[in-house]
């Protein structure tokens, strides 16, 4: 049995009168690739926001490698090795690509200088095939390049757990294939992923395991094959 990296137990989050997540529990093993699906408003993004500390849960706890993290600030969680991307990309628009890369790199290395971290940044940019853009400003990049830069930034954090929020939304098919490739490669290198996507084809082909949310509740989990057959899931997606 693989060791569990992340344990989310009975987590509840409300915004005013609205319950975004209700009593959700699940676990993620080391080097697993967990997909999360669910209709709009089912609480997927809230879940990621809770794990990386942008929101605090009203109830329940989140444990990352035996350490409770649900009361920690985002930046501490990031430094502990959880990185994320955003559904609507949030690159630093008035900073160059290289500066974007340096922010996470410098935040985790107390003593590192920009020069020392440069090779690593170039390597990652090369991997993502955007090294030629390194001196461009964030705002002058295309939407797809923003997705790549965000991924590159996360990699500079060198996280063990990566949370991807709709990485394929609005992405050119060619780039989508590239992104698949990058995720697989990183997974092979030992990274753990939680992946949210509406892109059923992508998520079913990438994920080892899937969890389904609906109206803030977990309604199913299992291997892609199991989920495909699950009545409740079909109900949630197609019902009314």
């Amino acid at each position, binding site marked *: 049995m693989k060791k569990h990296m992340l344990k989310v137990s009975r987590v509840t989050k409300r915004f005013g009168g609205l319950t975004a997540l209700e009593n959700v529990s699940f676990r993620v093993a080391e080097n697993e690739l967990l997909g999360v699906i669910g209709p709009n408003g089912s609480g997927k993004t809230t879940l990621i926001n809770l794990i*990386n*500390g*942008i929101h605090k849960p009203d109830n329940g706890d989140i444990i990352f490698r035996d350490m409770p993290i649900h009361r920690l*600030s*985002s*930046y501490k969680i*990031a*430094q502990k090795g959880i*990185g*994320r991307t*955003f559904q609507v990309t*949030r*690159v*630093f*628009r*008035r*900073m160059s690509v290289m*500066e974007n890369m*340096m*922010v*996470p790199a*410098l*935040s*985790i290395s107390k003593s590192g200088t*920009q020069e020392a971290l440069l090779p690593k940044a170039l390597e990652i940019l090369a991997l993502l095939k955007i090294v030629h853009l390194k001196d461009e400003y*964030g705002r002058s990049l295309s939407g797809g390049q923003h997705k790549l830069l965000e991924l590159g*930034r*996360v990699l*500079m*954090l060198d996280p063990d757990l990566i949370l991807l929020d709709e990485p394929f939304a609005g992405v050119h098919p060619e780039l989508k294939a590239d992104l698949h490739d990058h995720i697989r490669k990183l997974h092979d290198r030992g990274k753990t992923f939680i992946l949210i996507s509406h892109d059923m084809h992508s998520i079913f082909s990438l994920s080892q395991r899937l969890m389904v949310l609906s109206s803030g509740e977990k309604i199913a989990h299992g291997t892609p094959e199991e989920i495909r057959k699950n009545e409740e899931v079909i109900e949630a997606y197609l019902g009314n």
Partner: protein
Amino acid sequence: MKNLNRLILMGLLSAAALLPFAMDGYWLHIIIIAYYYALLASSWCLLAGYAGQFSFAHAALAAVGAYTSALLVLNTGISPVYSIIIGSFAAAGVGLVIGFLCLRLQGPYLALFTIAYSEIFRIVLNAEYRYTGGNFGLNVPPLFARESRILYYYTILGILILSLVVMHKIVTSRLGLFFRAVREDEDAAATLGVNVVKYKILAFVITSFFAGLAGGFYAHYVRILTPNIIQLPQMGLIIAMVVIGGIESLAGAVAGAFILQLAAEYLRDYEELRWVFFGLLLVITLRFSQNGLIYPIYKRLTKKNEKTHAESE
């Protein structure tokens, strides 16, 4: 390019060092005041342009430094050299409190909060005239016993250069990078491991220190202190300097301060019309050239230069 920058810098520095030999007392006074504004403008540029905190309390923080230093000298008799330093730390302390209180406030909310703080401070200074001298003004002892404008000139020049070196170091270091990341997107910066709270407060503390330093020097140079240095039009002047100079460049802010201060002096005969013109310039710069006026001109000049260089080679 780098060489060119260095050359310009050296040129400007030597010009600044030689200035007192080429100029009579009155113009030296104007330049000293320009240096004071340059320090205020560049530190506000660091706070607003780099760290993204559009505070209207900068003039008030200069006043914290100025009044602390002046009252300390008047009441305890310590040397102005120490009191200016204590005043700067006092300003940094107030900056710490403002930064902490404003953590959750952004955009117009931050602007309103800092305006309110400045106004309250001004009203208190006025109302407690028994201690502060109020509108009557506080007579402040001079920084130097000897009557010498040149001495003041080199002092403020030294302070300005030192402060600019420190601020430049900050801007180019990880601190500056984090300031800009926080400015761009607080949540995204936090998810990349940046301690947003710490850097936001730090931005206020550091820039308030420089504002306090400027204020302290000003008090002991001009020797008269009234609550007018907090008035909103003063803050407007600082903002105009930074915006016209270029809000994301320390050098631009310094240049903006110089240009506006000298222009105000040259155009003295036009009285109110100067401020009409500066207000218009501020609005037009914002509307059409958000990097200010200085930087684009400089860029164009150096670009042309590079071209001619390349052609000649």
